Every structure is written in structure tokens, then in C-alpha cells.
């Protein structure tokens, strides 16, 4: 349990650092660390597959991509658009309302709820595969169309158009 609290504290700490730091590159690096703490959470929950995917895809691929884009964009404090204070205040109020609502909701959940405790082995690759290729076969197959759509789109947008005049 103490490991959980330590990791949870680190997760929140680095998440806050992601928002508060001024330098965008530092912000992304803190986000990487936040994802790493989440990976540890997944391992603590015995969700090995999720942990590996989170580690490889999110921390590895996506965040590095993020970092590259940020470096290419060459952002700094001066180029940051000014946001009006009214928007900030409204955003803060709305966000706090949302947090309050959900804290209230989560507080009522009994820790011995069967979906909270659940099956300890549910996150293993074997069980996940069984569910994925049996009950969730149709969404799994149709996701291929989603990926194909994204691929066609990426090629279409990135390809240089040859102008014939």
C-alpha cells in the first residue's frame, strides 16, 4: 500500500509540474515521467499488458513524437498567445466544479465493490486475448477500418500534390 501512495503522490506531483512549468520541452518531459508513474500503477494492478502498451506506445512513441514536434515548432514564452483572465477564471471554476462532482461520486463507492476489486488476473495478456477474440471480436475487426482510414488520411494529407497545368 505504501508503494501505491508513493507512486500516486509522484504521479500527481509530476502532473502538476507538467502544467506549471513554463518551458514546453520541460513540460513534455514531466508528462513522460507522469506516464511512467501510471505504468507503475498498472503493474501494481497486475495489468501487465496495459503496462507494456503504456510504456512502449505512450511513453516511447507518442511522447517522443510530441517532443520532436515541439522542438520543430520552436515555441517559447513570447509566442504563447495571451489568454484573457475571464477565460482563465471561468475555466478554473468549471474545472473545480467537475472535480468536486467526481470526488463526491468516487467517495461513495465502497472499496469492496466487485468491479473495483474485480478479477485480479483480468489484466493478463491471456485473459485479454480471450475476451478480445471472443466477445469483442467485431469491434476488434472493425477497428482495422479505423486504422485504415487514419492511414489513408495521413498519406493523403502528407503527399505532395503534383500540379498538372
Amino acid at each position, binding site marked *: 500500500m505504501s508503494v501505491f501512495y508513493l507512486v500516486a503522490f509522484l504521479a500527481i506531483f509530476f502532473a502538476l509540474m507538467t502544467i506549471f512549468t513554463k518551458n514546453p520541452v520541460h513540460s513534455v518531459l514531466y508528462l513522460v515521467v507522469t506516464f511512467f508513474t501510471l505504468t507503475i500503477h498498472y503493474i501494481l494492478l497486475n495489468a501487465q499488458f496495459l503496462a507494456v502498451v503504456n510504456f512502449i506506445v505512450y511513453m516511447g512513441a507518442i511522447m517522443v513524437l510530441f517532443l520532436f514536434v515541439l522542438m520543430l515548432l520552436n515555441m517559447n514564452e513570447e509566442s504563447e498567445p495571451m489568454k484573457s483572465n475571464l477565460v482563465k477564471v471561468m475555466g478554473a471554476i468549471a474545472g473545480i466544479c467537475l472535480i468536486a462532482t467526481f470526488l463526491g*461520486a468516487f467517495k461513495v463507492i465502497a472499496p469492496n465493490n466487485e468491479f473495483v476489486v474485480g478479477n485480479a488476473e483480468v489484466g493478463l495478456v491471456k485473459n485479454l486475448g480471450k475476451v478480445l477474440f471472443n466477445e469483442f471480436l467485431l469491434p476488434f475487426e472493425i477497428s482495422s477500418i479505423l486504422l485504415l482510414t487514419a492511414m*489513408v488520411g495521413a498519406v493523403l494529407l502528407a503527399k505532395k500534390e503534383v500540379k498538372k497545368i
Partner: protein
Amino acid sequence: MGAIITLSILGIFLLYLGLYRAKNALLPVTIVGALVALGFILFQWNEEAVPLYHGMVLFDRYALAFSALCMLATILILLLSKEYFRTISDNIAEYYCLIVFSLMGALLVTAYHNFAMLFVGIEIMSVALYILVGIRKNDPSSNEAALKYFLMGAFSTGFLLFGITLMYGAAGTFDLGELRNYVMTTNEISPLFYGGILLLLCGLCFKIGAAPFHFWTPDVYDGAPILITAFMSTVVKVAAFVGFFRLFSMVLVPLSEFWTPVLLTVTIITLFVGNITALVQTSFKRMMAYSSISHAGYMLFAIVSIGAASAPSILMYASAYCLASIIAFATLIAVKRKTGSEHFESFNGLAKREPLLAFILTIAMLSLAGIPLTAGFIGKFLMFNNVMGNYNVMLLVIAAVNAAVAIYYYLHVVVNMYFRDSEEPLEQQIPLTNAYKVVLGIAAVLTIAFGVYPDVILKLL
């Protein structure tokens, strides 16, 4: 299910046709494929509907009717596309492929019976659209629209997913049938479930473009190519709305006391924002974007006062709205090709140059405004009737005021066509291809037919 498989294969086949540069075959093949898929849907009409594939999809009459509507609208839009895409770029096959995939996503959203399918369907539909909105790569407004739509869409999907997660946390299932059981039988519904409803409501309101989640709509509709705007504001909007309605009618009816006030507020804001901002627009396309927001508001009436009459009235309203929008956007394409502008002024004197085109556009505008003898009137009448049944007088008054406001801006373009003179010489006519004539003719005839004899549609559900 046959329709979904057909459309998936059709999309891949179109990519191959593009590879072998069979450009002239693209449009006929797409339309034949869509007709085959439509055939599958009509063929299933009398079969008993059971949830397929471990309860993933359910093709009941409700889903089939809206799928057929989406397909008809897509076919009409595709018929307009012949010359249109060629002026934008060379890679036409990919556009047809993306439209077909997007249509497939729309079918999944109309027929889902499990949140996993809702998510996959909405994503397929949206991802294809993010790209289609941005296909004019050299046009900054198209790029801006695509990026804005992508960011907003991704954000709203986040809400949707979080909502689904919370509902799963409460009920332990993604299946609509089991969720309904949970809502009906559990004595004390978990607070997580309520949070889930709110977040799902936010996510879905984003997708249908209801205020206060509408900020992307005007810019995206304005920046996208007109044909894609037509597709977005008809097929995609209707499909997202149908998904919305399916969730609420199948699962959440017993909890209506909780969500009705929220949805009522959203509806009222949507009506006012849509209509009042539409009043001050000078561009026809932007006016249509705001009017689509206000139409989302009218369609939400059916959910606010949910009941047995809701599904047929949504079908009627959606059909009327789709047909009229297709006419409006088709006319806009023709006019823009001639004058190069989307402003109301470019419609000046259209009645003298092209009396038939002007007349058909007038029918569409009257239908959108809800004038009797058009389909739009029946749609509005049914929606108002639903609300009246619940004695929701305040909403009724607000809706009537908004309908009156809407007449002003819809008739603006009609006035321009008939009573303002254009600076251009009269002989300059707008060349219309046969496909345009067919589409405009079909849409106009159906608009009048549904308006005179609405039972054709109402008896379906």
C-alpha cells in the same frame, strides 16, 4: 450487417481502383456499392432483429430506417461530386473511400448495442471527416477547420470515453440491454452512473453541435469544401443524433428526472444561439452552419420529451432537414461556381436567370423554415406536438419565437433571388449537369411529397 461488410469492402476496392487509375469508374462503382448496401438494409426490414455478435450491433427497424436515410443522403451527395472533387485534387479515389468509410461509421452509430461499437463507429465517422475537411491543402481556412475539428473532436471523444468508463464502473457492462436492466432493477444507482450520464451528454452534444458545445461548428462548416459540409451537416449530424437518441431511449428513460433539466437547458441555449447568430450572417454557408445548430436544438425536443412518438418524429425531421440541406448546398455549389462567392448577394437575380433552380431553393428554404406543404413543416409540427404532450409550455413558446426568427433569415436568400437585381447580364446562365438536375429534382419532389403525405415516413417506425 451485410451493409457494413459491403461498405468496408467497397472502400478498399475504391482504393485499388485509384491505384489502377480507373478514374471514370470511381463514381459509378461507389454508387452501385452504396445501392447494394441499401439493398441489404431494405432486405432486412421484415426480419426479426436480434443483437448480433455477442450483442454488439442490433439492426432493428429504428436502426434500419436511419441507416437507409443516411445512405440515401450519401448517394445524393455523391451524385453531386462528379466534377467537384476533380477541381480540388487528383487523388479522387481516396475521397470516395473516406466518404464510404465515414458512412460505414455512421451505420455503426445508428445500430450499436454496445458502447464499444458506439466508440468505434463515432471514431471511424469522425477520423474520415477530419481528413475530408482538410482536403484543400492550400487553403488556410480549410486547414484551420480541419485542425479545429480534429482537436475539438478528440477532446469530445475524451468526454465520451470517460463517461462510458464511469458507466462501466457503476454497472459493470458495456451492453445496452444489460445497462437497461441495471437501471431498471437496481434500487440505488451508483453516483458514478450519474457522472457518466453527464459526461456522455457532453460528448454527444459536441458531436451533434448543440450549444454550448457548438463553437467548432461555424468555422468547420465554413472552412470545409461545400460538398463535405453537406455530408457533415446531413449524414454525420443525423447519425450522431440517432446514437444519442438510442442511448437515451433504450437505457436512460427511467432516469429522465435527472437529465431532463440539463438537456432542456442545452436545447434552449442551442435554439437561441443558432437562430440569433444566423440572423446576422452575410455568408450563405455560414448561415447554414448556424441554422444546422438550431436544427439540432429542434431535434433535441424529441429527447427532452421522450416517448413512443419520438422516433418517428426524429425520422421525419431528419429526412426533411437532410433533403433541404442537400438542395441548399447543391445550389450553393452551382452559384459559387458562377460567381465565386458564398455571400447572399451572389444569389441576386437568380430567379430571372434560373427560374427553376431558384424555385427549388425556395422550396428548400421554406422546408427549413417549416412552412406548410413541405416536409419541414411536418417535422416541426411533430416535434412541437411531442413537447405539447408533456405540457412544457415554456419550451413551446421559446420554440415558436425561434421558428419565427428563423423564417426571417431563410427568406433573406429568397428575397435576394426574386426581388434584387444582379449586376451581371441576364443571359449568363448557370450550367447544370444532369446529375445536379436529378439530385435537385429528387430532393425537391421528396420534400413536397413528405410534406403532403407524411404517413409514408411515419408508418415506417
